[in-house]
């Protein structure tokens, strides 16, 4: 057997061939550019601004007026902790913030209590029902939040369906004030927050090996024991991620309280907004 030395010259690499080893980075580059330019850097910029010296003007000056030369509410190139000091020493800001955090925790608690069983229900549902439930759960998240909030408002109004139902059942003879209460604020905010929580927990449950559950049942554990000793402990990591997402959303959403809740339930951010609109 002879080695045939008849190599017909080197293969001429094309541009595509040369780029091929970098394909995976090229494919990722649009995303990285978008994320860096419009997500990461802006967030860092926001952080940086908080360390600028204030120019005294209140509000977030960029919209319109701040656009002019020398406009804006901060002095470039300065570093200071003043804003933080002022924030944490201002009774009004602090009270608003404490309320925001407390309210967010309440929303998170209610969301988690409702989300886990719902996620588990979806997880165990037969295929067709599962698809339908996922559609129903994702609908509020994808819909316009104003539509959602004002639909709830109509539902909870003094002459709304819920009050009519209450009077029909005979719990109360008069309509109960539901709108602009902590109750309505919670109900609306939970609805804005819960879809992703449910979907993340459902997805977590689906990563579990179903044979573990069957094995547990086969070994003599009741459905409840199986859930408590096998399914739930295994779903904890994913549930914690869902919890994190829920807290972020609960802190972040700011429109619904200003629409539904009374002035005391206004969160820091809606406070921020109304200040801005005044200036």
């Amino acid at each position: 057997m002879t080695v045939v030395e008849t190599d017909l010259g080197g293969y001429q690499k094309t541009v595509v061939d040369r780029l091929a080893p970098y394909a995976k980075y090229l494919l990722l580059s649009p995303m990285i550019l978008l994320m860096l330019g419009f997500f990461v850097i802006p967030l860092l910029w926001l952080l940086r601004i908080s360390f600028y010296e204030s120019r005294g003007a209140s509000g977030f000056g960029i919209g319109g007026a701040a656009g002019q030369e020398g406009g804006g509410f901060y002095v470039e190139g300065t570093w200071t902790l003043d804003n933080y000091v002022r924030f944490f020493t201002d009774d009004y800001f602090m009270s608003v913030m404490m309320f925001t955090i407390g309210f967010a925790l309440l929303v998170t608690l209610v969301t988690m209590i409702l989300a886990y069983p719902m996620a588990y229900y979806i997880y165990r549902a037969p295929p067709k029902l599962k698809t339908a439930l996922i559609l129903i759960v994702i609908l509020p998240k994808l819909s316009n939040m104003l539509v959602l909030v004002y639909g709830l408002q109509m539902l909870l109004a003094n002459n709304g369906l819920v009050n009519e139902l209450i009077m029909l059942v005979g719990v109360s003879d008069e309509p109960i004030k539901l709108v602009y209460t902590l109750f309505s604020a919670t109900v609306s905010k939970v609805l804005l927050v819960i879809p992703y929580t449910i979907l993340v927990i459902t997805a977590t449950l689906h990563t579990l090996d179903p044979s573990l559950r069957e094995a547990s049942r086969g070994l003599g554990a009741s459905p409840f024991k199986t859930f408590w000793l096998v399914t739930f402990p295994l779903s904890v990591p994913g549930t914690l991620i869902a919890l994190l997402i829920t807290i972020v959303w609960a802190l972040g959403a700011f429109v619904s309280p200003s629409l539904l809740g009374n002035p005391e339930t206004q969160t820091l951010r809606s406070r921020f907004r109304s200040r801005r609109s005044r200036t």
Partner: protein
Amino acid sequence: MGAVLRKYAWHAFAILMCIYFLAPMVIAVLMSFTPSRFLRLPTDKWSLRWYEAFFNDPKWMESLTNSLVVAGLTIVISLIVGMAAALAFSRFKFKWGTTIYTLALTPVFTPAVIIGMSMLGVAYQTGMWGGHLIIAIAHSLWAFPLVIMVLRVSLDGLDRSIEEAARGMGASPFQVFYLIILPLIGPSVLVGALFAFIISINEFIMALFLGTSETETMPRVIYPTLRYRLTPLVAAASGILMLVTVIGLLASARLMNLRRLVEYNRSQ
């Protein structure tokens, strides 16, 4: 006996949750059919007068146009970014693959206020502030992770040897993409586009931060109207948004098995 009761309680809970999810939307849409000048449920008569008013109002129509332009741009941006990234994630191994993937999904879990507020600076500095494009870019931050999720499920479900076969038969990587991969994941691409469209058409806070009166999208017109001038016209606008959203979602469910989004095992 107790077990049966528990089972009923269990189903009742799920049904109540579904009512909770659906009722606000249903009420909002029903209101739009009232013949009355005030926002109330139509009791005996139904009317489309507020929809007529909507389509005859140049201000609303302008906002609808703006919404559609922004949504169109959002589809383009999030499909390009999402499709490329989904291909990278499903066809290549990365050292920190899972971490990068998780990071790529963070924008979708970031509240709109944060995105909108933080993007003000970039928007202003690049002179894009107030334009359709910057709103679309902001919306894409919410849309592209969904496109990645949808496409990845679909791409990972494809038999890899189909692409290898095409390459072996002489197709270049690009030919493999548009002759084999694209036709096969077509429905999922459409689902991704629909998701992007639905997100953009409904999103309001980012549009509020980044748009001007020139580029007012529909939710932006709804907002002040809702606060100060509560007429059924708002309900009609909401009805249109809901209609678009529900049709989009149902179409997605037809095109693709949405169950796979939650049944998909990320760790594979």
